[in-house]
């Protein structure tokens, strides 16, 4: 039973770290990076298509 308060404080600490990271992202305008990450598969497609054309495949 006594471990619960410890776990609660630990989870709160992790939550606080999350909030601080979020604030850091907003301040550095990195939060928009999520949009770019969502487009990464397209870049991989491009890279593989380029490699294929260079190696004469397709």
């Amino acid at each position, binding site marked *: 039973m006594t471990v*619960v308060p410890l776990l609660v404080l630990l989870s709160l600490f992790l939550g606080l770290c999350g909030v601080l990271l979020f604030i850091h992202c*907003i301040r550095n305008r990195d939060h928009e990076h999520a949009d770019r990450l969502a487009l990464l598969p397209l870049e991989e497609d491009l890279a593989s298509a380029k490699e294929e054309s260079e190696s004469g495949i397709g």
Partner: protein
Amino acid sequence: VQAVDQAENETLADHQDLATMVRSPLAAPRQRPPAAVISCAHCGLPVPAGRKRPFCCAGCEAVHDCLQDAGLARFYALGGGRGRPIGARPQPLAHDWIAEHERAGARPDGTVALDLDVQGIHCAACVWLLQELWRRQPGARFLDLNPALGRARLVYEPARDTLPAFLGAVERLGYRLAPASKRDADPLRGLRMRLGICIALALNVMSFALPRYLGLEAGAALTALFDGLSFALATVALLVGGPVFFAGALAGLRQRILHLDLPISLGLLLAWSSSALGYASGRGAGYFDTLSVFVALMLLGRFLQQHALQRNRTFLLANDGAEHLRARRIGARGVEPVPITQLAAGERLLLAPGDLVPARGTLAQASTFSLEWIDGESAPRDFAAGDRVPAGAFHQGNAPVELRIEAGPAESGLLRLLASPADDRESAHAGARFWAAVNRGYVATVLALAAAAAALWLWLDAARALDVATAVLVVTCPCALGLATPLAFDLALARLRRRGIYVRTLALLEKARAVRRVLFDKTGTLTWGGLRAVTLRAPPAELRDVLLTMVSGSNHPVSRAIADELAGEGFRFVPELRVEEIVGEGLRATHGGAHLRLAAAADDVCALSRDGATVAAFRIEESVRDGFRGEIDALQRDGFTVELLSGDRQERAERVAAAVGIAREHAHGGLSAEQKAAHVAAGGAEHTLMVGDGLNDAAAFEAAACAGTPALDRPVMPSRADFYFTGTGAGAVRAVLATAHRLRHVVVHNLWRAGAYNVAAVGLALAGHMSPLLCAVLMPASSLALIATTAWSLRSRPEARR
């Protein structure tokens, strides 16, 4: 193919919805929409009658062909089957800023790194397209696109003309790139940060409230810890999120307006006070969980609303007016590009074809200029050597000319014309009487109910009076107003964005409901701004190629119109032909010993003569945007008064009015900017929607309740308008009006639903049966129900798709 079919069907459904919605508020008779509507193969919008290929406008046709020819058809697959409407055929822009920026961005390894703003990016398909085009350029090293900000970082080898080639390629597809000038400051940063923190806090407070709702005994060892944490975190949530609403409520009170933020603020403060009192007196955590969720939800609503508008505002290049315009100054070291703000009287400028005249000056050589932007006159005007040309004219001549500046851009009035208006369209016609009435009624009712509850329970059981009054204030939280309404607004804006209509102001969809009169500018709005030639007498077969060779070498709008009219099946260029263009006298050439001359033969008629005898003739008319006839007919059927305002001559205004179905008495030509504004005011500005594109419409924009513009290539007008649109523009006005009515319909229904919920919840609270647990269940449940019904109401209807 399936995706394209679906997108086309959705567009058809939107089109049909629109016809129904615009009519219904005005109680006009309903009519069945046309049975078959062909959708544009590029953007999916309906194709106006009379177009030869399945495209709604020349821009969509050109971009589609370009994508197919370049092997970039995957764009459609990535973009959900369709692109966005384009409008006029995209024209390449002047890139005289490149050299200056390349010098500034040079790196030690010989490459150049540049940050550019991008206009036209809206989805992953656009990103793929730009990346693919960049990859194809020789010397391209790296491209990083930030679609949220509309910003690109490019690294390349400047010696290989990488950037000009890339810019040419993307501009042909309707995108525009310019030196980075958008403000880096994120206006939503504060709200975004508060929202993120409050969501994190709300989740934690809820997790601490849950054990008690699931049966944790009040006296258990952990209860004190959980209650203490709930109190601390809810207090932080109030301190972080509350000021957004407190500031709004205070500002409203100062102006004696009962703002929506007032009941939100009162609910927050009372919920926290009574819960804190309860916590201090050992009665548990009270409404701390509800309070934290409420703060997060209200902030989410506020953020949704602001984010939708911000997205539409950052879609275009920065509209800082003259700040980034360049002119070619003739100096001791030759011709150098300089910012037009640095120009001074007495300096000499070189004006290339298509250049904007940045300052009033006198011409060294004769040439042709378009004053369309200044006074709305569509036909270019000839200026002789020594004539004075006003700032804001566009050089339409075929060769560069020299201009001696008489007055700098500031004295010429150009900077004043280009500057964004001082007043904000949000406040200029706040006209939100509906919301004022709703807020006033809501605040008065809730406060009266809370007072009645307190009085009733003071009489029944004084110890519970504060609890009951607090319960009334908490359960009547304005979720419908604070969350469902912004969501409805966001969804409505997204629907319009799919049609190429970008709303810039929050107040538009409220003001548009009052619109009963729609005024259109002529040149550039109802017409494409260019000219169209109609063959009256076709040239003899042996002269067709000669005539096309003559006109294809000329930049004069009449030459371009004749070339467009004749060049449908291509032509054989005649290299030996020597063509001479004389300002004011047309084109001359000698072919087979005969003297050819192409010149104006009468008003609006251009003729080709051979040795003095006319062999071909064309009527030159303005190129009316496709689909506007149907749009204006529909508006008039629905009871709107439609008028045409123009700075051009009365007979030309009447001619275009007749072409689009506007009655002659509603065509007003020869109007100055001030006269246009006076006309708007005389007919009831609060019921007027003005659609225009030129600087001469700016005063009318400010006078009218609502304003829209298709002038995206002149990033001055969008900043003065409530909305801007791409594509032909046909349907844009009705779409805005219909969306305004539909949004109100959804909001009113939400208010009824919220009212029913509040009657039940307040009944429970007054009877003393409301508990923090019941409140914690009812409040999110009612919010979720409203969100679901809002999304459902604004969906595309499946039955219409069939």
